[in-house]
């Protein structure tokens, strides 16, 4: 079996003395979409932050393309080819839409994604390119945040709660673009509270509960009962 693109090996993560992740392991193969689900505070965002280098695991390690990146700084992890779409979008308010996208390309990794390709994927952004990012609606901000992450030409895209606070029709619209992104050879980790959406978009599912993996498996094989048991811990 080929070695996975991302191999998270039994990581422990802490906020001060509070342990948020307990021996969490996860694998993502090239071109695969993996969903991470779980209740509030289960450790989903912590897992993504640790992979992206914003936090460092105290135990275990993160291997990307066979290389250990657990202790790499966030700006260095981007250069390896991992991009995070942060929870709450977090566009730079002082920058225009286009400047937000350009700064995503700061690391100058070569690859298929250019400003033009992002505008083809999300045409509304092209119309608003010179406006302040704060003038965008929530859904448009989410598109800009995804575009900004893609501009670094990652091999792995981490999406943290892209449906949060958005109308269902907008969420469907954004999810409809994900296959185009995967078609460029990217792997995805989707962290979601919207379980139905996550199951539809992904091949593999991991369910976190209080910092531990409570369930994992192929999306189509997991039953409703097993998911709700893992989700709620009942």
């Amino acid at each position, binding site marked *: 079996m080929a070695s996975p693109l991302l191999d998270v090996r039994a990581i422990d993560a802490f906020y001060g003395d509070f342990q948020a992740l307990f021996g969490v392991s996860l694998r993502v193969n090239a071109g695969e979409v993996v969903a991470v689900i779980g209740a509030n505070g289960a450790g989903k965002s912590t897992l993504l932050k640790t992979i*992206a*280098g*914003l936090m460092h695991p105290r135990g275990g390690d993160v291997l990307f393309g066979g290389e250990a990146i657990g202790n790499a*700084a*966030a*700006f260095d992890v*981007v*250069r390896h080819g991992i*991009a*995070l779409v*942060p929870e709450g979008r*977090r566009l*730079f*308010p*002082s*920058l225009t839409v286009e*400047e937000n996208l*350009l*700064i*995503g390309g*700061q*690391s100058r990794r070569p690859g298929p994604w250019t400003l033009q390709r992002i505008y083809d994927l999300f045409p509304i952004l092209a119309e608003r390119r010179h406006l*302040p990012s*704060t*003038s965008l609606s929530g859904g448009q901000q989410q598109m800009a945040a995804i575009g*900004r*992450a893609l501009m*670094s030409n990652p091999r792995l895209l981490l999406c943290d709660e892209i449906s949060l606070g958005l109308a269902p029709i907008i969420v469907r619209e954004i999810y409809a673009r994900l296959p185009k992104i995967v078609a460029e050879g990217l792997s995805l980790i989707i962290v979601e509270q919207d379980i139905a959406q996550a199951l539809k978009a992904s091949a593999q599912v991991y369910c976190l509960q209080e910092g531990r993996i409570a369930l994992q498996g192929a999306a189509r094989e997991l039953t409703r009962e097993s998911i709700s048991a893992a989700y709620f811990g009942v």
Partner: protein
Amino acid sequence: MTEWLNVILQGVLIGGLYAMFAAGLSLIFGVMRLVNIAHGDLIVLAAYVALMVTQTLGLDPLTSLLLVVPAMALIGYALQRLLLNRTLGDDLLPPLLVTFGLSIIIQNGLLELFTADSRKLQAGAIEVQTFQMMEGVWVGALPLIQFIVAVAVIAGLQMLFYRTALGRAFRATSDDQAVAQLMGLDTRHVFAMAMALSLAVVAIAGVFLAVRANFDPSIGPARLIFGFEAVIIGGLGSMWGTLAGGVILGVSQAVGAQIDPGWQLLAGHLAFLAILAVRPQGLFPKVSG
């Protein structure tokens, strides 16, 4: 009438110098929320660096900028990487205390090396050249050059901030450090570049200060106050606001000095207080999105 016109004109021209004091200060606070208490002493340090360069190489002060500006920029980069980056965090106090200590170290270091004697950079014939603008209104060549340079510096900074990748990185880092890192920006390097740029402007301000008047190791803190006042009068919105702040401070001081020579500084502080009372956010505040 022309007497007052002269006074105001002199105030405007000196305001350019104050704007240069302020620009570096505002840049650093804007990018990394660091209040640099040593800013005034760094201006004086630049003046002494220029003094050494002009004396050892026999250059005139304006030409010495070619060496003083990169030297100060380098000092700024190293200072940020080796010292100030370690003090940055959620708390504003540690960098404040460290730069306060730095201020004392620079003053005493200069005192050891150069004594407390007053010095001045000699720019030669250009110092006494004047033009008649209109009947009874005269303007010195050097103050005019100083003002033009100040406008060019402000315009340059404004362009750098809004038209270049470095400026984009400064603004993004100022907005959200964590996400800036996710974009591949090493914020330690971005901060060091900001300090390098700040001290490059400090170098220009220091040389003009040293050509204009006597200086000694103790005059830094007063320049820091002028810089602060210009920043706060102008508001933190734009570099042009900083220029306006410098000019308002300069004109207030000139008008005060004209009424009574002892009122120069007082008038500047009063103008500052008046604006702070009426518009605490400054004249050109940052537009919040």
